C-alpha cells in the first residue's frame, strides 16, 4: 500500500494572510512552507547558534499569529522577515550580554560604527521616522546593485563572501563598496542634521 505525497504549490500571500484571519491552523504550515527558509536564513545570519535561530523562526510564526488579525501585511515576506530580524537581534543582544556573542551580527554592527558614534542619545526616538525616511531617500540614490549589497549586509546580515558570490564580485570588492556606501550615508545624514 503506497500513497503518493501530494505536490501542493505554496499558497498566495493573500490566502495565507486570510488563513491567519480565519484563525486556521493551516496558516502556520503554509507560512513555514513558503517562508520558512527565508526566515531561517535571516536568523542564521544573525545568530551563531542553529538552535537559537530555529527558536526565533518559530517565535516568528507565533508573533505572526498573534498580530494577524488585526494586522494585514501588504508584503508577507518582509513582514515575517522583519519579525525574524527583530527577534534574532534581540536574542543576539541577550547572548552578548551573557558573553555568548559571535556570528555575522557582531561584524555587521561594528561596521555600523562608521555611521554612528555608539553614544546614547535621548532624542533619537523623536526623529526615528524622519531618519528612516532619509535613509530610504539615500538608498534610492544608489544603483540597484549597490543598494542590494547594502541591504543584504545590513538588513539580512549576509556575510561578505555570500554577497560576493551572489553578485560575482570579489570579497574585497564588496567590502570596499560597503565602506563607501557607509561613508556616504554618514555624510548624508549628518548634512541633514541628524545627531549620529
Amino acid at each position, binding site marked *: *500500500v*503506497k500513497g503518493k505525497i501530494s505536490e501542493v504549490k505554496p499558497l*498566495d500571500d493573500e*490566502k495565507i494572510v486570510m488563513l491567519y484571519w480565519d*484563525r486556521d491552523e493551516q496558516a502556520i504550515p503554509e507560512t513555514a512552507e513558503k517562508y520558512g527558509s527565508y526566515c531561517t536564513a535571516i536568523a542564521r545570519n544573525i545568530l551563531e547558534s542553529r538552535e537559537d535561530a530555529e527558536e526565533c523562526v518559530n517565535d516568528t510564526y507565533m508573533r505572526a499569529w498573534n498580530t494577524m*488579525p488585526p494586522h494585514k501585511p501588504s508584503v508577507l515576506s518582509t513582514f515575517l522577515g522583519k519579525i525574524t530580524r527583530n527577534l534574532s*537581534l534581540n536574542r543576539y543582544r541577550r547572548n552578548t550580554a551573557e558573553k555568548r556573542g559571535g556570528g555575522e551580527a557582531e561584524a555587521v554592527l561594528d561596521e555600523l560604527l562608521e555611521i554612528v558614534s555608539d553614544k546614547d542619545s535621548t532624542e533619537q526616538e523623536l526623529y526615528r521616522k524622519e531618519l528612516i525616511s532619509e535613509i530610504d531617500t539615500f538608498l534610492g540614490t544608489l544603483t540597484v546593485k549597490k*543598494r542590494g549589497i547594502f541591504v543584504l549586509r545590513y538588513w539580512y546580515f549576509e556575510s561578505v563572501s555570500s554577497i560576493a558570490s*551572489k553578485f560575482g564580485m570579489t570579497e574585497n570588492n564588496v567590502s570596499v563598496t560597503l565602506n563607501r556606501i557607509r561613508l556616504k550615508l554618514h555624510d548624508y545624514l549628518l548634512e541633514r542634521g541628524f545627531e549620529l
Partner: protein
Amino acid sequence: MKKEYFADVLGDISEDYIKEAMKPEKAKSRTWVKWAAIAACAAIVAVGGFAAWRQISAPSDIHAGVQIADSQTSETADSSGIPSITLNGTTYIVSSHAAVYDELPEGFELAGEASIGGDESYQYYVNLDVPEWVYVYQEVTTDGTLDSSGTLTDRAKHGAYVRYVDERLRGKALISFEGKFYISMWSAEYYGSSPDVTQEYYDEMKELYGVRIEGAVPEGFRLAGTAEFTGEDTVPTGELSSNTSPLAVYYNPANPSVIYAETYWYTATKEEKGETRHDGFNVYILYDCPFN
C-alpha cells in the same frame, strides 16, 4: 546613536528595497518537515469553528524573568517562548486552543502556586481524573468576541483560568481506533525532549505512506466510520474517536500500522484561476501513546 539602535532603524527601511535585494535568489525548497517542528512549538493549533476567540496574554508577560517557586514546580517558557509549567517532571504547555475560562472548570482543585517574574504568584489547579491538563489562573490580555463582520471587541486585562496541556498531547492530532492509538504524521515528532516516535519509524512511515495524500484512498482500505470527536486537547478513547474533529476514517484489516482520515485543502497559486479544492487523506500512524 547606539549601533544597535541604528540596526533597528535600518530594519524599517522600505519593503521594496528588502524585496529587491532578494531577487537574484529564487530557489525555494519544500520544507514541510520543518513545519512538523514548528507545529509542535507554535502556540497555535486551530480555534476552528468558533464565534468567539480569545488570545492568551503574550508570552513576554510570562517568560521574562521566570522564577522557580519550589523544587516541584516551575513555570517557565519552553524553547519556543510559549508559556509552560513543569509539575513533577511533566511539562505542560499553554493550550493551542486558547482555552481560557472565567470560571474554574469542574473537577479542578487548587494544587499550588507558581511564581512568575519574581513577586507575582500564579495559582494552578489540577484534576486527578484529567492528569494531562493543568489550569493556571493568570492575567489575559486580548480577549474579545468576534462578530459576524469580523470586528473584534476587546476586553481589558483580567484574570482567567488558562488551560495547560501535557506537552506529549498538546497540538497532537490523535485517533483512537479499535483500542489502538494513531498519531497524524503532521504532529508525530521524533525529536525533542519527549518524542512521539523514533526517527527510524517516522522515516519508514513517511517513505511508505507520506504525510497527506491526494485522491482516492489506497487500495485495500475501507471506511471504518466517522470518528467521534472527544474534544480539543483530549486523549481520544474508544472504538473510533478523534481529538481534532469528527473524521471519516479508513483502515485496512491487513495493515494495522496506518489509517487514513479524510481531509481537503485549497490551493490558489498564480497558475490557478481562483481556488482549487483538493480532496485527500491525512496519514495517521500507529504509535505508543503515553496516555494509554
